[in-house]
């Protein structure tokens, strides 16, 4: 297994070391409880701009919890307590002054199951602009096209952008959801197992898209598919039982992990 992963990994383009170390997210001593259940334990993680950061780990280790905390979608779960800080571009995301609406505008999110709105393809993308008070038809039209192109979907749907989004295949829907994020020109895109509900062909398309997007966006992606993490990410964080066991370049994690638990997990000895 490990061999195979290495092979794939080596195809990845070399890390861009020249880029200065700017962090989009800096998590410091984050703890999170669902009621009494301590789901995230003392997380410390600095996420670099324009990186694809993968979060891997066995089921229930807190991957989704962490990523949902980054854009405060976790607020929607009743009975959640947190302490510690998360800084987004040096602003504390838990502070009163930092409105969640602003945070979520700057940080897009793609979910496990494609969740387009029950509207037309066009309206799905225009939605974000409209709620933000952008009414100019021309800007909207241009953005719709640009976003769909950005999500590598334009050619497939350009003739039917006014048809319902639910008529698209699963993979197309997921790319539509990505396009929907892109319309707001986010800074970071969070993805929680974005391909786990998709067939292999669609998965491949989405993976290719992620590779393109990383030119312009910082991407944090949760995946339970280690090959995927190996294929597409620059950095990988390995979560276990709510803790970060190891966080390093993907190469290191998959080829010479420092922690034996990481090694065990990667090589399929558990999880």
């Amino acid at each position, binding site marked *: 297994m490990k061999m195979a992963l290495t092979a794939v990994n080596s195809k990845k383009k070399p890390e861009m070391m020249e880029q200065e170390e700017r962090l989009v997210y800096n998590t410091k001593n984050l703890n999170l409880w669902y009621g009494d259940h301590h789901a995230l334990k003392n997380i410390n993680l600095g996420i670099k701009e324009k990186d694809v950061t993968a979060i891997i780990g066995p089921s229930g280790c807190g991957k989704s919890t962490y990523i949902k905390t980054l*854009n405060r979608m976790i607020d929607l779960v*009743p009975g959640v307590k947190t302490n510690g800080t998360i800084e987004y571009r040096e602003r504390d995301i838990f502070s009163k002054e930092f409105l969640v609406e602003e*945070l*979520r*505008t700057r940080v897009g999110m793609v979910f496990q199951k494609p969740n387009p709105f029950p*509207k037309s393809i066009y309206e799905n993308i225009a*939605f*974000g602009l409209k709620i933000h008070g952008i009414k100019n038809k021309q800007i909207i039209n241009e953005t719709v096209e640009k976003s769909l192109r950005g999500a590598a979907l334009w050619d497939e749907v350009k003739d039917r952008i006014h048809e319902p989004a639910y008529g698209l295949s699963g993979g197309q829907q997921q790319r539509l959801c990505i396009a929907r994020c892109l319309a707001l020109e986010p800074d970071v895109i969070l993805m929680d197992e974005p391909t786990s509900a998709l067939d292999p062909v669609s998965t491949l398309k989405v993976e290719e898209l992620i590779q393109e997007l990383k030119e312009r966006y910082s991407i944090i992606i949760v995946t339970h598919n280690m090959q995927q993490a190996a294929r597409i990410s620059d950095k990988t964080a390995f979560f276990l039982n709510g803790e970060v066991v190891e966080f390093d370049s993907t190469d290191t994690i998959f080829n010479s992990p420092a922690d034996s638990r990481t090694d065990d997990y990667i090589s399929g000895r558990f999880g």
Partner: protein
Amino acid sequence: MKTPNQDVSPVQQLLEKKYNGGFLNRREKIIPIVLFIMAAVSVLTTVGIVLTLIFETVTFFKDVSIVEFFTATEWYPFSNTDPVYGIWPLVLGTLKITLIASLFAIPIGLAVALYLSEYASTRTRKIMKPILEVLAGVPTIVYGFFALTFITPVLREIFPSLELFNAISPGIVVGIMIIPTIVSLSEDALSSVPEPVRHGALAMGSTKWETASKVIFPAALSGILASIVLGVSRAIGETMIVSIAAGSTPSAALDLTSSLQTMTSYIVQVTTGDAGFGTTIYYSIYSVGFTLFVFTLAMNMLAQFISKRFREEY
């Protein structure tokens, strides 16, 4: 059929017996037929209603000209000298009550439904819905006296020119009566929009209101329309509230502050009243009933048409 090395389990033995003994199941053939007959009952009900109404209506039109029925602007069947049967005042009465009730109940009902499904805590929702549902079952005579002895006096304090019997007070109370129906069903429709859709919108930085109004509400529209149709149908069909609080004066005036009569309250008036069997007045209730039936039918058709047009799949 068994592999030789496997000892035959009791389960397989039993199954074997079952299939060798033939698996002819008459039940499977009969049940759909029985169920179809059950489904036919509701069709027969409609047929029954139409037949019941149509025979007596035809008799009615032997005495009264159909032209008069649709064109005369007066409904005065009890006059001993020359009764007039023009359905318009009763239709107008029904329209007034329905209109006021709808204007009152639809915005409030939807506001409450949106509040409960999008803003309120689960606990509030769990407490409020059963309460509202109980109130949906309060007998309408109760609402009738509530209109007459509470709402009307309050309104008359504010608008002294309002008559004791008017369209506004019963209209509002009919509205109050249908609010629980609208809230309960709309709330169901709103909360059955899948959570991921809601999260999708929130994750883009939209506020709760934007999520509710631009995503959830349109997605639930066909369910919401259905709740409105049911509520408005009940407003059209409401009898006791109107009989008690709106008087029983068929009136062709557009004025909302004076007494009126609706189609349903006319029917109840006659059935509890004095009209002898076989009189024109007696047959007139069937003609009014028929008009009412056509009225609600038309509204339901319209609503189904609208709901089909705006349906958003999720």
